[in-house]
């Protein structure tokens, strides 16, 4: 189960439990805020999902109802050693899906704020998406870090 035959110094440093804790806490905090902020605004959130025009209408609300809670529960589960591997797979998987959704929206020239096709004048909408994309990539790095640690410490988890 070794990723690198002999643990390099860098690897030892990167997998320092304190450093991994930082990644876990940042991920947990982000997803806790993501999830908790959406829960009382499900109508708005359902509309945002709809604006991506990726899901059939019938599934939009079901996703809006469940996704914020998955974010909250996964965030909490990240804080516990035993559940951290499953939590990081959940969080990483969600981030990956968000990233793909954003890339697809950018490629289709969608304006996510109104769900309409961008006529090319609204640079703000595009920048907003690009910022989200960069942030999601950062979250993916954190998730990969936690996953790496989980695999290395398999026996202890």
């Amino acid at each position: 189960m070794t990723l690198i035959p002999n643990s390099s110094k860098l690897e030892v440093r990167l997998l320092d439990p304190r450093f991994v804790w930082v990644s876990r806490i940042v991920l947990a905090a982000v997803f806790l805020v993501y999830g908790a902020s959406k829960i009382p605004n499900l109508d708005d959130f359902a509309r945002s999902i709809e604006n991506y025009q990726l899901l059939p209408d019938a599934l939009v609300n079901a996703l809006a109802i469940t996704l914020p809670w998955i974010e909250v529960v996964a965030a909490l589960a990240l804080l516990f050693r035993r559940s951290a591997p499953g939590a990081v797979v959940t969080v990483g998987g969600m981030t990956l899906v968000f990233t793909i959704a954003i890339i697809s929206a950018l490629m289709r020239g969608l304006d996510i704020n109104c769900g309409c096709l961008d006529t090319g004048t609204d640079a703000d909408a595009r920048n907003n998406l690009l910022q989200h994309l960069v942030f999601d990539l950062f979250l993916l790095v954190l998730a990969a870090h936690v996953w790496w640690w989980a695999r290395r410490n398999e026996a202890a988890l």
Partner: protein
Amino acid sequence: MFKKAIIQAFTICAGASLIGAGVNLVAPWGIPFVARGKNLPQLPDSALVDRPNPVPSGAHELVSVTLQQAKTLFDRDQAVFVDARPEFEYAEGHIPGAINIPFDEVEYHGAAIANLNKHKPLVVYCAGESCDLSIHLGELLAKKGFTAVRVFFGGSVAWQRAGFPFDRGTGE
């Protein structure tokens, strides 16, 4: 490790979804599990009577109208047209006489809504089939007690394509 993590992840998703569904049932902010989408019943042509003030048949009536029905209501001046698009899009052009209540900023347009006659037919529209602002505003107005809300899904796109009168703004 991977198998264990997947099982955990599945448990997290399933458990959280159940919590979410349960909370949604009881919470005041709950939403329907399946959105109505754009499946509105269509206004029967028989309802388009040539009277100055057609009385709506049922309370809280939320129906859709076709391009032709919208045009008929427009020609007979039997409905107030409500443009649900953002202000700048309205400024670029709109159906003549339409008022603008941008759904995304509806909280700032309480006065405009209060000024509308609750029993006069409203034709709510946005850009076209791909936009949902009209149905969302329509649902909101119906919830607020407007009794004759008609959603025109074709919107400004279908209206212009048909060559119907359109107020072109300054684009400001």
